[in-house]
């Protein structure tokens, strides 16, 4: 794997994003309007379980939408160009890093807006942010590969959710568990076990994406 190539591809993703920020703005607008609709429905949520569930469902849908464009947006010609200048490993690593950063930003912004409108029940901020970061790594690894799969089908975006939800469950349930602990303000040492599980799942998901992507990309 050529790290320089990864950097070039990553730079290209960012440059595209800055040149045409409508996609990024779209995701942010999606999150904000979903949170606002939830606010109009629920007003303030004081029940920790409902708070956690709603937050993760909003983030889940936002990230599926955000990831869907990572391969579907690239036309056949652009993909062909990648093949000639870079290897499969570089492309998938660059896309995963980019998606991971994107999800972290979207996650933090959602948390901000969610706190403003729905209320903030988190007592252990460090634990929650840590879990969010680790979760973003795993979710981006999984969704990037699934979006590469979905891009090969006729109705890509529709399949995205169906294909990814069952596979996301292990990650999501661990994240919800950790969020519940963060809401209760339980110390780091008690939930270290879950952070380790989350980290292990991240490693599994990332290595699977890295190993399987080369089989997806030739047409």
């Amino acid at each position, binding site marked *: 794997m050529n790290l320089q190539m990864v950097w070039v591809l990553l730079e290209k993703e960012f440059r595209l994003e800055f040149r045409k920020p409508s996609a990024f703005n779209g995701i942010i607008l999606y999150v904000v309007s979903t949170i606002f609709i939830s606010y109009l429905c629920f007003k303030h949520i004081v029940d920790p379980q409902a708070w956690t569930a709603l937050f993760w469902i909003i983030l889940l849908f936002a990230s599926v939408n955000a990831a869907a464009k990572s391969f579907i947006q690239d036309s056949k010609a652009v993909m062909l160009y990648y093949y000639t200048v870079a290897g499969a490993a570089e492309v998938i690593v660059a896309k995963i890093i980019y998606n991971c950063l994107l999800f972290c930003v979207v996650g933090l912004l959602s948390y901000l807006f969610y706190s403003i409108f729905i209320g903030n029940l988190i007592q252990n901020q460090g634990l929650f942010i840590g879990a969010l970061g680790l979760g973003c790594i795993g979710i981006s690894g999984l969704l990037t590969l699934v979006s590469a799969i979905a891009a090969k089908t006729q109705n890509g975006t529709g399949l995205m959710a169906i294909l990814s939800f*069952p596979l996301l469950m292990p990650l999501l349930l661990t994240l919800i568990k950790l969020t519940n602990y963060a809401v209760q303000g339980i110390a780091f040492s008690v939930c270290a076990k879950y952070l380790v599980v989350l980290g292990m799942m991240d490693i*599994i*998901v990332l290595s699977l994406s890295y190993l399987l992507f080369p089989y997806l990309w030739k047409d």
Partner: protein
Amino acid sequence: MKQNWYKVLAVILLIYTVVAGFLGEVPHLPILHETIRNLYFHVTMWFTMMTLFSIALVQSILYLRSPNEHRDIVSAQAVNVGLAFGILGLLTGSLWAKYTWGAWWTNDPQLNGAAITILAYLAYSLLRKSIDDGEKKARIAAVYNIFAFVMMVVFIGIIPKFTGVDSLHPGKGGNPGFNTYDLDKNLRLVFYPAVLAWILLGLWILNLRIRTQKLNLLINDEQ
């Protein structure tokens, strides 16, 4: 006859399973009582499903190493047959749960794991249907199959161990049941043959489905 021995064995063992399963002596445990017989008809479904999904996994990995149509057909049909057994497992379990736990569905790690597994493999079938090109379909489905299997193992095998959530199932979390301590001699005498019988039946159905699928492809080619 040489290649059909397992079908004969399957039929004999299935008859034995049904007869001995309903008439045989079973230990009388609290809560379970006579429903303990579901061991032969519910637990065996999961064994068969896992066997078939493992076959599909192996064939998918082999397909990615060296593509050939036979492997793709085996892997796709193994998933189909495995799904059928999985759904039967959910139905037999749900019916049993209604009369033992008092609800069709409970929030139990094993139930959730089973449901997510079935959803993932239904998504696999849908994925296959939404790609037309044969070779591309086979390759992409193989990739998804491998990913789904690994995540299923993570979900069913690893998470419950770490989170320490006990299942309601017999033998788990201090419930009376047929774990290694009290899997009694009479139960074993039927349970092990029953597992073999259902797996053989699954393989037989798989064999038939592979053959019809190949014939279908031949007919389509000639047209």
